[in-house]
């Protein structure tokens, strides 16, 4: 039997329908190259470890105030009730403080992992979480190379929590709470381009003070949170072996192969079906 018209259109219809569904899959991650992301530059040479950022973060987000303090040898971690922490490190240049929170990647793994776009890289720069979309699958946590998103395991109505760079404050033309309240001017808010210029300027003007590396300039494809440090970043507990490409690029190859398989497979399968159908049934039984 040859392929008749009806069958042909039937299969074509099935293929077409799947393509319609799958077409969007190949849409890559946010590549807002004409958009200027806002970000924060953190200068650990200026930070005095006073935790004002932690307190103002807790206040801005209605979270409990921190009860512990930075201590050498203790790595405090962010969790579902605190979105930023300051840690102390004993380095080759003495005690150095480091504030940690979401890095707000340019091309975030969490947002590209999210199947409902609950994790979302805004055009302004902050990566935000939207509870009306999130189904709580925690794939963002699996994907994030910085282990930033946290999950409320003890709640029947759990949220994913993380720093959102005070997105709602930014909407009101205010700077993030931690930046506004930092007494040591260790935090600076601005567009990513301005911040990188400023960071390079500080390194150039004070080459003895800073290590010549802006963490976040290239890590994970670039982040909106940028770090300056007096010592190599490994000494401050940073993962310096992260890839320079963005993380969503890792699954891009797979996603790109999807449409071609959806076109080729059905046609090939139907072809094999037609080809083997004419075989004498005896061959099959004897095998």
């Amino acid at each position, binding site marked *: 039997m040859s392929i008749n018209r009806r069958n042909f259109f039937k299969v074509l219809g099935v293929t077409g329908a799947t393509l319609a569904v799958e077409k*969007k899959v190949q849409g890559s991650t946010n590549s807002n190259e004409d958009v200027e992301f806002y970000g924060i530059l953190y200068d650990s040479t200026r930070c005095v470890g006073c935790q004002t950022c932690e307190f103002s973060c807790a206040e801005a987000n209605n979270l409990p105030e921190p009860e512990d303090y930075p201590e050498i040898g203790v790595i405090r971690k962010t969790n*579902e009730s605190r979105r930023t922490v300051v840690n102390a490190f004993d380095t080759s240049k003495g005690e150095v403080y480091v504030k940690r929170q979401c890095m707000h990647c340019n091309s975030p793994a969490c947002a590209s992992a999210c*199947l409902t776009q609950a994790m979302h890289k805004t055009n302004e720069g902050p990566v935000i979480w939207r509870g009306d979309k999130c189904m709580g699958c925690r794939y963002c946590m699996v*994907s994030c190379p910085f282990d930033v998103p946290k999950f409320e*395991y*003890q709640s029947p109505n759990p949220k994913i929590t993380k720093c959102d760079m005070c997105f709602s404050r930014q909407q009101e033309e205010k700077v993030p709470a931690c930046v506004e309240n930092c007494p040591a001017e260790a935090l600076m808010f601005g567009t990513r381009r301005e911040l990188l210029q400023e960071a390079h300027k500080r390194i150039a003007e004070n080459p003895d003070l800073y290590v010549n590396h802006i963490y976040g300039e290239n890590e994970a494809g670039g982040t909106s949170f940028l770090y300056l440090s007096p010592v190599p970043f490994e000494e401050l507990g940073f993962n310096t072996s992260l890839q320079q490409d963005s993380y969503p690029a890792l699954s891009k190859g797979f996603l790109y192969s999807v449409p071609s398989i*959806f076109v080729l497979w059905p046609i090939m*399968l139907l072809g094999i079906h037609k080809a083997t159908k004419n075989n004498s049934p005896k061959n099959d039984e004897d095998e």
Partner: protein
Amino acid sequence: MNKAESIVLNDNSSIKNRWKFLRNEFRPKGKMFTWFNVISVPVILVGLVIIVIRFWKGIGSVTNLTQEVPWGLWIGFDVVTGVAFAGGAYVITFMVYILNLKKYHSIVRVTVLNGFLAYVFYAGALLLDLGRPWNVINPIIGNGFGTSSVLFLVAWHFLLYMIAQLIEFSPAIAEWLGASRARKILSGMTLGAVIFGITLSTLHQSGLGALYLMAKEKIHPLWYSEFIPILFFVSSIFAGLSMVIFEGSISRKVFSDQISAKNHKAHSVIVHNLSKICAMAMFAYFFLQILVFVHGKRWNYLGTPMGNWYLVEMLGFVFLPMVIYFVSYRNKNITWIKVASVITMLGIIINRLNVTVIGFRWDAATHYIPSWMEIVVTLTVLFTEIWIFRWVINRMPVLRESPAWVGENH
């Protein structure tokens, strides 16, 4: 054959008769105190209590998941491993409907049923693991089409593949209900559903591996490579077929009254031929693993504990069963083929757990070990699935021949 069937044969039966038939069918059949029932019922009851606690007090109250290891046994075993075992359905439908190898026809229905139930229950298990399950329809209704997400693809594929498998199986339901016209329409859709289903399976079997591509630094380098999707796909072929062999040999004992003498005899031939396909697929997989290993220059991991564990997996649970499959194919030794299928299935469990749980955050200070409650819930899902499977087998023409009115050409 039995009372139910005699009612079905009366095609002009009144609604009252139909109703009587259905009521009769939903009544339990068979012995109450089989060893399976005695074990599974208490487990399922405890599991249901745990599920209530989980929705009442949160996921953390019953699982050992942490902020660093957010996916545990429920994803790594129930979903990722379970779906690999359900791969038999696309392989067998490929052989029967695409390659037209009619000799495998007698196991199509039971394999598709197995696959369909596996997907229904593993998708169900997924709901338990979702923190906000009421939002599960969002990627379907478009409250955020996260099209750059591999999970978006997998979610859609689960849904579509369940529909495709239901269509593939639906003629059996129509035969059970005695709906001859519906049966004709539904069997006409089989080829389309099969082609669609195989395409979907190719993509989401590999997609389950692709989920972990972004966790590059979190998975032990011996199990992480850009080839995870291909490895997952190839291994799903022999994982599914080993499940078919294993399930077939159990079904043949438990449901022996359902199977005709002809199919009883045919089964050994089928198992024998499947062992060859398994051996070849495993050879391809083993070869791919060697390529990945050499290509990734992974020699220096071999001395470590994880390296030894890797060797155990590759040699003990891939190479060894491959050889057993091959040798027992040559010797036509059905018993050893079954042994190989069990070792292969253990190997698949080990492999999937190595990627998703054991090798995930292998370097962390504290390791994730599933709580007993996670294990009980996993068993609950498994046992409930077997209950439904048995219920369907005892009622619909899955293992037994179709009713006489269907005719020869089905």
